[in-house]
């Protein structure tokens, strides 16, 4: 088809696709799913982190965490806006999230159980997200690419602050703080690796997404890169990564690591993680409890508009 060939030519020439451009239906649908999933992740991702705002151990850490969660909610906003350029409304996307139809990053189905988890999320979870997002700054869809650029700037800052919190605990901390950080990485390491998705062999839609340049690297590529980047950082912290098979491979110039528990991976995606039910019911409750508020604001906006027209008339 001529449209499709022209479209693919633009992609290959690294010319951005913008909202008004023709695009294959599959491209549009895939992007809506991918962008909204990312947006939902920012929204739901507030919960495990906000869980420690009231208990942050210093005023400074409380401020840092408030700023981080605020940023992430903001990222959610950019992403919903980007998705809306593809012909879907935020309310529709939220309805999919609340009904359980739409997915969000599984990592947020794990509980934050101690203060080190807050730093750990910054270091590992944001770190893994960045690994995925940096290449997407070059993705083919203009609004998504620009949202990624804005987000990546802030995300690196968050990662550094998370790592800094762990440096404080691991290198300048008490024995209990070190234990807390070790307990934390014991729980978060494998779920962080799972953030990169199934192995390439199991990954169904990758080829088309890569051709459309809305996926830039394969799951396994990013996962390997993440491990190679992160292991030295863990060594610096003096934390032991909970993988007995982790080993430097001189030949490949990277780390060999153990097999992910794919059973746990699929269970969590299927809704059986420790926090799936709680996360979703918290978001649904916030939405339902807030109906009167949104209705109130809309009613007032209408009244104001009516008064303005009446005054003009």
């Amino acid at each position, binding site marked *: 088809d001529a449209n499709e060939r022209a479209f693919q030519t633009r992609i290959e020439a690294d010319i951005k696709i913008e909202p008004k451009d023709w695009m294959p239906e599959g491209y549009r649908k895939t992007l809506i799913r991918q962008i909204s999933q990312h947006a939902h992740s920012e*929204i739901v991702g*507030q*919960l495990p982190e*906000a869980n420690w*705002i*009231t*208990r*942050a*151990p*210093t*005023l*400074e*850490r*409380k*401020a840092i965490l*408030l*700023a981080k*969660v*605020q940023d992430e*909610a*903001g990222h*959610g*906003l950019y992403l*919903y806006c980007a998705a809306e350029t593809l012909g879907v409304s935020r309310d529709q996307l939220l309805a999919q999230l609340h009904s359980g139809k739409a997915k969000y990053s599984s990592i947020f189905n794990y509980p934050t159980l101690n*203060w080190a988890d807050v730093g750990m999320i910054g270091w590992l979870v944001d770190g893994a997200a960045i690994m995925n997002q940096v290449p997407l700054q070059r993705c083919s869809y203009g609004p998504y690419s620009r949202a990624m650029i804005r987000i990546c700037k802030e995300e690196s800052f968050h990662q550094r602050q998370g790592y800094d*919190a762990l440096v*404080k*605990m691991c290198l*300048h*901390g*008490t024995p*209990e*703080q070190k234990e807390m950080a070790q307990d934390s990485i014991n729980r978060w390491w494998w779920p962080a690796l799972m953030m990169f998705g199934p192995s390439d062999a199991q990954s169904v839609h990758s080829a088309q997404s890569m051709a459309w340049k809305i996926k830039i690297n394969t799951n396994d590529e990013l996962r390997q890169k993440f491990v190679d980047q992160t292991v030295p950082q863990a060594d610096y912290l003096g934390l032991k990564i909970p993988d007995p098979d982790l080993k430097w491979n001189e030949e490949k110039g990277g780390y060999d690591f153990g097999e992910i528990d794919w059973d746990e991976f699929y269970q969590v995606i299927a809704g059986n993680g420790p926090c799936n039910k709680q996360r979703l019911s*918290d978001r649904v*409750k*916030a*939405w339902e*409890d*807030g*109906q*009167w*508020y*949104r*209705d*109130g*604001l*809309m*009613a*007032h*906006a209408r*009244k104001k508009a009516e008064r303005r027209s009446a005054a003009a008339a």
Partner: protein
Amino acid sequence: MTADALCQFALRLGDNCLILAQRTSEWIGHAPVLEEDIGLANVALDMVGQTQLWLGLAGELEGRGRSADDLAYRRDAGAFRNLLLVELPNGDFGQTIMRQFLFDAWHHALLKGLTRSAERRVAEIAEKALKEVSYHLARSTDLVISLGDGTDESHRRMQAALDELWPYTGEMLTQDEVDDTLAAAGIAPALETIAAEWTAHVADTLDKATLRRPPPGHMHRGGKRGVHSEHLGYILAEMQFLQRAYPGATW
């Protein structure tokens, strides 16, 4: 005497910001819209910053080597000096916004007065805080009007919130010995002036919001002198846990 009074005053201002930031933070991730998760986080973040400034000053004045963090994390409820208003449970979102509005209207008027304080450190902190609190007040005023003059239900909820919180508005407008001392020293404005400004702005806003100002009645007091409600103890148990469980750790 003036130094003691100023220390108490700084504690009061810092504790107001701290406890209100705590209460506000409970909403993050649970607000009615994303814009409010952001908006509330922003307000809470500002207030944590102001907490650091006021409690920092209190610690200096006290001269016992206590930092803002020491004061925030190591005092029990009887030593806190916040208004009762800010420690009350959040209630529904309308009650949270109404509380913020009633507080902002006082906070803004007070900070304006404090920028002219005879005590330089107070004037400086007030200058910084005033920018942020002007924004807080504009925001909460808008929301009270929109929700008061919104739907029947939003109106009902805002009226209920106003009725519920009204008995807690007297405390911030009533001058006590500490306020007397500081007004006499030109360090803080007379609360009469603040009360007049608060009353005018609140009346104007409620009018636009089609809300009915509650009749005069009994006002609850005690927070400014450390006699709190049963709520504060729980707020502190949660807030202070890590520092109390891991004394000597730095974070």
